[in-house]
């Protein structure tokens, strides 16, 4: 199921603000579903409605950013609930890579498991990239996992990703399931030794 992911390029979309939680990315009422299909249309729905009511436009509603592939956020993106519906909604909308200052761990783990690279940059760089996208929404943003660089409009910004996840993307092993299942003989051997599964012997 897994494929090698070494670089993503496409237009960018900024989502400004710290601590954007998963309830905002996909409100709980859209969790009443048994598949992830169709979530893309509801990404950031309540934030979008609220801005509309104030006569403003959320970037997900802004015509200039439609079709973007690289979402650029700030600190602690995706905090809160473990719902994979959040990164799934973003991915179904069309995003193929995320750039942010930091992420909640569960959100980041979900991104890796889905094959959605989510890299870290400094706060200043995240804002600079957002401004560059706003200045020229047609500019191509690239996220290069070999060079660990985010590039836009001739400028390069260093980015980070843990060694484990980076290797998983570059070797096409971000979908851990196959490997985990291959290890079942060792898993069974481990279970046979755990005190609480063996009457505390």
């Amino acid at each position, binding site marked *: 199921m897994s494929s090698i992911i070494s670089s993503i390029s496409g237009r960018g979309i900024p989502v400004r603000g710290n*601590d954007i939680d998963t309830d905002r990315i996909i409100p709980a009422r859209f969790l009443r579903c048994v598949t992830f299909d169709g979530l893309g249309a509801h990404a950031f729905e309540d934030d979008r409605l609220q801005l509309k009511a104030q006569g403003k436009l959320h970037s997900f509603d802004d015509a200039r950013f439609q079709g973007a592939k690289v979402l650029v956020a700030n600190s602690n993106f995706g905090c809160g609930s473990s719902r994979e519906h959040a990164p799934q909604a973003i991915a179904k909308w069309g995003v193929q890579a995320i750039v942010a200052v930091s992420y909640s761990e569960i959100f980041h783990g979900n991104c890796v498991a889905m094959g959605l690279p989510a890299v870290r940059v400094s706060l200043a760089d995240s804002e600079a990239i957002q401004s560059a996208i706003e200045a020229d929404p047609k500019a191509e943003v690239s996220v290069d996992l070999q060079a660990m660089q985010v590039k836009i409009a001739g400028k390069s910004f260093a980015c980070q990703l843990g060694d484990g996840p980076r290797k998983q993307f570059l070797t096409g092993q971000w979908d851990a399931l196959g490997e985990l299942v291959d290890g079942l003989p060792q898993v069974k051997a481990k279970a046979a030794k755990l005190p609480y599964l063996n009457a505390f012997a």
Partner: protein
Amino acid sequence: MSRNTLFDKVWDLHTVRQLPSGQTQLFIGLHMIHEVTSPQAFAWLRERKLQVAFPERSVATVDHIVPTEDQARPYADGLAEDMMQAIERNCREFGIRLYQPGSGKQGVVHIVAPEQGLTQPGMTVACGDSHTATHGAFGAIAFGIGTSQVRDVLASQTLSMSRMKVRKIDVKGRLKPGVTAKDLILHILRVLSAKGGVGFAYEFAGEAIAALSMEERMTVCNMAIEGGARCGYINPDQVTFDYLKGREFAPKGADFDKAIAFWKSIASSPDAEFDDVKTFDAATIEPTVTWGISPDQGVGIGESIPAKESFPVSEQPNIEEAYAYMGFTAGQPIAGTKIDVAFIGSCTNGRISDLRAAAAVLKQHGGTVKPGVKAFVVPGSEAVKKAAEAEGLHEVFKKHGFEWREAGCSMCLAMNPDKLKGKQLSMSTSNRNFKGRQGSPEGRTLLASPAMVAIAALEGVVTDVRKVLK
């Protein structure tokens, strides 16, 4: 790097092998399942023609979408009914135990597993829910996972994980009368921030933690995730052992004694080393209430809403957003804030001791719910509900003007029919005050302890509960 902590011992005990990516393949001792984050995982298993590797190590219940008034099937909400049918079919097909409404064992997943004795010290626990951290109260390493990882656990009983750092949160001294475990964790969050714990497991320790009951410890660990820590834990001790004794899935007879020896052995050693230590003084903590849109935006009941200048510059836009969303201004005292709804329940504060604390306030105060305020109690599980009714707590709540409901998550996240309307302001014992969390996209939430929510319901405004506690 940390050494000889409970985290290190449990992690090492459960390590199956290093994966080629450098991640650890970690055995999961207990996997809890609920209806919201599991249907896609089972669908992926079917797609890949995989079986559940250890069906007896997974236990399922339903909580998020369950109505708390009319539970007749099929549910009025067709989408909720579809989700119920999906989990029933999945558990039947894959041989997984399911606690349904009416079984006497249904309830919020993080309340059910401890009360059945499923959660035990020294285990790894995973669930497709961020508040899995709750189970750390027993000295387990427990964390929330996403749906792809739910699939991984089902298929292999393991996860691909990277090790966390360990921060000790040493709470010295004792909490003052009228100050609860909820106030303690809200205070810790306020000091360490909503993202301060990213990359860490939190070990809660010290005199104030040791003095907490098992249920209070669950309240503290439950909210570790609100501080960014994927898991939080407390070393097991006599309080833990006494709680477990006699529960359905706890070891019995001679095994129980052997279990205690194992449980003691996995606690952090006296020479344990931590990546970081933070110290708190319990005696300085006041009943705490959040005023903003992140659980770390809290203040003591005697304080006012803080000026944005008291936060780092990078945080100030968030603080302004919180003022605007909540309709509050800096300098306004939190006490006296008018509320519309009072909600008592959730995996943070929906256990029997929480209901007792709230009922005690109602009795001491003597009044009834302020006209115009909607107040309701949702027990965290069917077992909690039964225990409360045996003590007559439901009569106390009803007599003082509260509604008494069936078990579930309810207005903690409002996936069932319980929802705020418009800009209503709710005072809630749950764990998240995010924008729109309680079901109205403009709804507002103040987080507090059960005692503080109880008194606010009677007074109609945020009030220091110590005025009625002797």
